């Protein structure tokens, strides 16, 4: 894995973000909402609006506005929220932090559960355990977050009263309550992840177990354990890294719904709020930040993969 490869990937991230910024900006520009009206509210007078439009450069040609905006973004300045009149970037990054917390817990839970499940299924291929796991994973991937979430709220929060239905408490403020509030969102998010990844692990492992070198290992008289844990597993788990990275994309999409349902003030919820309030700067910032996160995650995954799997010679 050469520095050139890394440099290339980094340039790619740059390109990605450029494209994303174009798309997002384009969409937000056409969104049916008058930025000035949004900011001053419905009681604003025409002259006040005109003044603000001038101030915000809303009368410039679109591409000018884009460049201005881009220039700001590069300086880390995403503009002021039309809803709260506050700088967008800090709020969004703070929100991102909360989302990442959610994401990390979910991925953690996923790793703890998905991999063993996948292994069991692959080793017990075709037997009850396998069918059980794959049934669960089918259910898992097939339940939209909003369904899982609502059902869990219904049962765990309202009927059994074990957990708070929604809301968010910073871990720094009160760790215990904070965690209690995170349980349901994490369960919801990791559900699909677990289902997805365990299926991946299973199929990868099944493939590997059919490969020549595994047969060779068996014919060398190694025990099943040795064959599985020494020879098969590492080969099977490598591709999973990439899968997990790709799932970050899903994760980001998923948090939008999950955070909305659980009123978790992460970046997903910020985006929904922003979209509903036509808070253009927030939408732009949020979307761009999400894309960045995704791109970076994939970059890291590729690098990790290339590093772990020495066969691959990137250039």
């Amino acid at each position, binding site marked *: 894995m050469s520095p050139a490869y890394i440099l290339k990937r980094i340039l790619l991230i740059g390109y990605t973000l450029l494209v994303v910024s174009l798309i997002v900006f384009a969409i937000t520009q056409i969104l049916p909402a008058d930025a000035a009206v949004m900011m001053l509210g*419905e009681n604003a007078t025409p002259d006040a609006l005109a003044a603000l439009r001038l101030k915000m450069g809303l009368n410039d040609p679109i591409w000018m506005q884009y460049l201005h905006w881009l220039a700001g973004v590069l300086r880390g300045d995403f503009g002021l929220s039309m809803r709260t009149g506050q700088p967008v970037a800090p709020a969004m990054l703070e929100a991102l932090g909360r989302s990442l917390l959610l994401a990390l817990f979910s991925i953690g839970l996923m790793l703890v559960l998905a991999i063993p499940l996948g292994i069991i299924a692959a080793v017990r291929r075709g037997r009850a355990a396998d069918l059980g796991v794959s049934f669960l994973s089918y259910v898992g991937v097939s339940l939209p977050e909003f369904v899982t979430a609502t059902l869990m709220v219904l049962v765990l929060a309202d009927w059994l009263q074990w957990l708070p*239905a929604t809301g968010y408490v910073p871990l720094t403020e009160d760790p215990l309550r904070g965690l209690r509030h995170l349980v349901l969102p994490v369960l919801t998010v990791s559900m699909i992840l677990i289902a997805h990844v365990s299926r991946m692990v299973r199929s990868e492992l099944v493939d590997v177990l059919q490969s020549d070198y595994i047969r060779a290992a068996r014919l060398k008289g190694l025990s099943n354990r040795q064959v599985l844990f020494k020879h098969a597993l590492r080969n099977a788990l490598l591709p999973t890294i990439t899968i997990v990275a790709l799932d970050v994309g899903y994760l980001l999409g998923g948090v939008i719904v999950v955070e909305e349902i659980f009123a978790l003030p992460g970046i997903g919820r910020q985006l929904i709020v922003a979209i509903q309030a036509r808070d253009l700067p927030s939408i732009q910032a949020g979307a761009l930040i999400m894309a960045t996160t995704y791109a970076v995650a994939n970059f890291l995954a590729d690098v990790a993969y290339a590093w772990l799997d020495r066969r691959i010679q990137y250039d």
Partner: protein
Amino acid sequence: MPSIHRRDFLAASAALSGLAMSGLQAFAQTPRRGGTLRVSVDQAVSKLNPLVTRVNPEYLVAELLYSGLTRLKVDMSAEPDLAESWTNSADLTEWTFVLRKGLTFHDGSPCTAADVVATFEAILDAKTASPARQNVGPIAKVAAKDDNTVVFSLSAPFADLPVTLAYTNAKIVPAAVIKGGLEKLDRQAIGTGPFKLVSFEPERQIVVARNEAYYDKARPFLDKVEVVVFPDVSAEASALIAGDTDLISTTPPTEFGRLQKASGIKALRVPSGQFCNVNFGCDQKPFNDIRVRQALALTVDRAAMVDFVTEGFGSPGNDTALNPAYRFYADLPAKQADIAKAKALLAEAGYPKGLEATLIASDRPGQRTQLAVALREMAKPAGFDIKVETMPHATYLDQVWKKGSFYVGFYNMQATADAIFSLLYTSNAAWNETRWNNAAFDKLVFEARATADEAKRRALYADAQKLMYAEVPSIIPAFFDLLAARREWVEGYQLHPRGAVFRLDHVSLGANAPKRG
């Protein structure tokens, strides 16, 4: 429905009455001082500047941090706030308010007549875009006679000024801040209110602590108030049941049931003038034809509507903006659904084959959609083919509100009949959403406003209501009872029918309240 205590509104006695009332409200044992109250609201508090707040949670916070000249009591009468007394000229065109001595803002600077004048000038200045502008009454000029006397000269006789000055947005802010630019108040609060701002997270929670320099040495009783934002109403209810919060400022009927059942909780309910309506653009086809409006009104099964829209926690409406919760409510025969008659009217109006229309409903609060969908079904048999379109509230405000010709509105109860009429239905209304522009109606409202005599006013307002009843500028099928709930350890809280007033400085915590923060 408990009859609301009717009182003489003559301004002269208002000051007295204020004192009297607070006397009445004294509790069995004197309220305990101290403790943190955690109150939950159902929307973000994105605006902190009291002059431009727009939604109830924002009013709640503004009320904690700022004071007006007067404030609204539970019976919708005015009581002194920063002003300790007031008098008015016989013709009701000039009002003089006397401020308390030694008022200070949170930043320590004194609060004087100058600040009051500056504030009202700001409110009346279009650039400020304050909703109060159209709601504080026909103020022509505000002047400071001396450091603590302010004189309001009105453009027309106006009897309700002390009440309208209690308007949610008419909060006094420092003249200096106004000069320096109001945006200073977007993130910090410099008021004279019972509490000072501690922390402000629009989406999550706002914390305020007792203002030791508050003019009333007794109040507030609480050390701290945490205003917690719950964007999800059912979670909000769950939180109260779980004891995470002490008070729900308002809760939808769908949650009220289980709050009533929950132990340790007192579910609160008060009849109110809050209503959901269907606004017609009376200036354009097809709704410029009174028969079409009447026809649609005739399709509404109002009893069922009360069920659908309020889950039974409300009362049927008669298409007039007033209900018994208002002082000048006139009792008119309850409207009944009559499909045949509706059909006939529709045919008369030139729609024998029926009429298509798109009814727009913003997505919050949910009752709007409820009403729209229910109306759609009720109107079907009469030949109305209504397509319901819901949209995010922001889009609605941007594209439909005050512009559309057929959409669902939702309004808090106002302090006075005049307030609600001149907010919505007179041709010079702040939000003239129906463009009904009925000269007769305007005249009645205007006269009533300038009339001091109770009986005369009642007669005038009765006629105004009859007009609405007959011409249906908007269908008002049901009024809401306001619903809320508190833990039993929360004392001295009275659910205010206005919906935008909370008076949390009168609240205290019982001995068994959990210790917080």
